[in-house]
């Protein structure tokens, strides 16, 4: 039921009753299917989309480009494992292009992030170089618009 996953990825707070209406399936079947997805690791968890910019002192986020030397046997996986083991690291992606790993790092201040990059990330064996980009504004995340000006109102008028 790919549609079930699509619905949940847009809104994890849909109840199983609502999902059973939407998908025209018995609620029990929906529950079992979700349990199966959780079991198999297809559903990895349920989180909330937060606009951190609106939260005072919520810290900063940076995108770090990492160029690394892949290992003979394990390729990029081993170095990715080391990178992701840091608590400061939010997400890690292997990239095809001018660099290898895209790493999102969160910290309280710019200095804190900068120091993490220079002292921890750069210090890893396989890392050849890093480039740090601080995020200034989040326009869209997780498919949701975060920009106030972009918020779309229902402009439909009633004509009759």
């Amino acid at each position, binding site marked *: 039921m790919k549609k079930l996953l699509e*619905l949940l990825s*847009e*809104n994890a707070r*849909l109840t199983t*009753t*609502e999902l*059973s*209406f*939407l*998908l*025209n399936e018995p609620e029990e079947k929906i529950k079992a299917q979700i349990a199966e997805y959780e079991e198999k690791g297809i559903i990895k968890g349920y989180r909330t989309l937060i606009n951190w910019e609106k939260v005072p002192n919520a810290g900063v986020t940076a995108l770090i480009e990492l160029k690394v030397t892949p290992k003979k046997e394990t390729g990029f996986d081993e170095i990715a494992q080391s990178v992701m083991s840091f608590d400061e690291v939010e997400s890690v992606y292997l990239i095809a292009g001018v660099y290898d790993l895209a790493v999102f790092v969160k910290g309280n201040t710019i200095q804190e992030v900068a120091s993490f990059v220079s002292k921890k990330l750069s210090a890893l064996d396989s890392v050849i170089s890093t480039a740090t980009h601080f995020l200034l504004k989040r326009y869209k995340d997780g498919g949701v618009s975060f920009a106030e000006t972009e918020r779309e109102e*229902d402009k*439909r*008028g*009633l004509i*009759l």
Partner: protein
Amino acid sequence: MIDYSSLLNENIKEVKPSGIRKFFDIANEMDNVISLSIGEPDFKTPWHIREAGIESLQKGRTWYSPNRGFNELREEISTYFSNRFGVSYDSSCEVLVTVGGSEAIDLCLRCLVKNGDEVLIPQPSFVCYEPLTVMAGATPVIIETKSENEFRLTKEEVLSHITDKTKLLILPYPNNPTGAVMRKSDLEEIAKIAIERNILVLSDEIYAELTYGDEPHVSISSLKGMKERTIVVSGFSKAYAMTGWRLGYTLGPKEIVDAMTKLHQYGIMSAPTTAQYAAIEALKNGYDDIKSMRDEYDMRRRLIVGGFRKMDMDCFEPMGAFYVFPCIKKTGLSSEEFCTRLIESKRVAVVPGTAFGDCGEGFVRVSYSYSIKHIQDALARIESFLREI
């Protein structure tokens, strides 16, 4: 001082303002209102269709079109209707492109009826039929459809309203506001009467593509002996989410379409040119868009019907359009009271059934042309409203 009321046409004075308006206006003045009152798609026109309109503008195609509409568009309409509903119309003389389905309804009435003629109008139904009949000089004869028949029009109801003066039957299915549809067997009974009693049928099929479930929409024009006495009205607004483009069409016998074309030519000249280019693209490459929007509406339909039933509201399953028409009689409130109190206490706007005819009393129209999240929030508020009253 000029006494304008003495100058106005008597017929227009008789026409009442639309009852849908009122709640929308109230809702507009309040904050934090969740509306389920709007009767148009929340989808935007699919991008490739918009692009075709834009391209025509970039190429400077900004002139009038032929009165009947571009040949290519009429050919596409004819092909589409024949493929979808199995009736062939000659694009050269049996198709007219209009400014929305509404213009076609107006033209049809003004070309067919005169003083003294009676027009059968099933209600609850869209608000335009009665006023346009009055303005065409004829007499509207209202047929009240029943919730126990799931608001289908029955043979008995038609027969008991026919007189020697009956000229035209308006057939508004799939129905706004009830979501009712007429199945083939229902239509066959109506067709039999129309033929026996020599009555014309104006079939408003604007919601044809929004028919849910396994049984597809059937046009009454496809039944034996009916093409020659049916005027089909449809358009692009609902199926392709193109309301603002203002484009509809009519299909019917040459003589009637010719007469309508004459009136259209003098009153309107031609339908919007940009919209026609967009509509050609819609008919050529837009069927997948219809399907995906229909599937999305269908999900919301089940969510909202399921939601109302869970609240123990009587709600028959609508198989067409994008409205549900739950019965609110259990609350002891009139439709108008229900809607007023709902918007005042919970800030949810729905439309009283009475806006669509007196027989809509005891019902409200709820549109599901909204996102799932929006419907979820509105249902939660309605549920708490029902608990409190």
